[in-house]
């Protein structure tokens, strides 16, 4: 099914949960925060939170930045 991750269309298997998505992206979960349809999903809930067709996911992390836009 098609979902939108960080504003890009991505294909994920039906029945995926957030942790599946994170794993498939090859990312270290300890460094991330995730939003599903504008709602923050705590890391403890990634294994049980289902993703549906058309869902919008934001995956963020820390980058270098002091006081700049």
């Amino acid at each position: 099914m098609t979902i939108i991750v960080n504003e890009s269309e991505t294909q994920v298997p039906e029945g995926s949960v957030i942790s599946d998505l994170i794993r498939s992206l090859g990312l270290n979960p300890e460094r991330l925060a995730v939003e599903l349809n504008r709602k923050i999903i705590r890391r403890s809930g990634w294994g049980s939170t289902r993703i549906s067709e058309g869902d919008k996911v934001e995956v963020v992390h820390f980058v270098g930045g002091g006081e700049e836009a």
Partner: protein
Amino acid sequence: MTDSFKIAGREFRSRLILGSGKYASFELMIRALEASGTEMVTVAVRRVNLTDRAKESLLDHVDTRKYHVLPNTAGCYSADEAIRTAMLAREVLDNNWIKLEVIGDEKTLFPDNQGLLEATRELVKEGFVVLPYLNDDLIVARRLIDAGAAAVMPLAAPIGSGLGIQNFTNLRILREQIREVPLIVDAGVGTASDAALAMELGVDGVLMNTGIASAGDPLAMAEAMNLAVRAGRLAYLAGRIPRKLYASASSPTEGIVSGV
């Protein structure tokens, strides 16, 4: 001599806080952090680049046992954006500290006071330790403190401008009037003397990023800033001599050998 200070009950011995942006490499950034003697580093919150397979993350390089990581809301132009960013930031390290920036203008990166106040109120309610970036405005500072800010961080000059303190009068007034929370000069520091001057005014700390990261030799500048903040603080504590219009001889007038 331990001359430490506390923000929200957490003690810091270094009065210099660094940003992590604009460095040529992660390695350079880490060495600059070390040379500066800082104990706290700010970071920004951004989308993961999903097409970048290198996947190195800032946190892979920052020792969180050594440095207190302070996420910021850089790039946020509204209270809603800043609040959303802060909430996300909190999830990454389960850390409820936030350096709050709500920007009002792209060219100057000056803060939007209304948004800043609104976001501070909301985030304090949510249990955040809020450190807001503001202009050197006493009234805004007071409102932010009433709203629960854990410190106030007035700018010396526009972010990244390197102009140094532009309004000594305002900063002196702020220092005299703000006693309830730490006062940290943030933004616009260009070179060591700027940092020393801020500390000589009696502020509690200085935050900078560009001044070090974009210097010709960031490691040397990090060391310079380390020394400058300490020198300025010592000078402040030492109690400077007054400024006089006329000379005041240092040597005694008695016993001068004349006519030789």
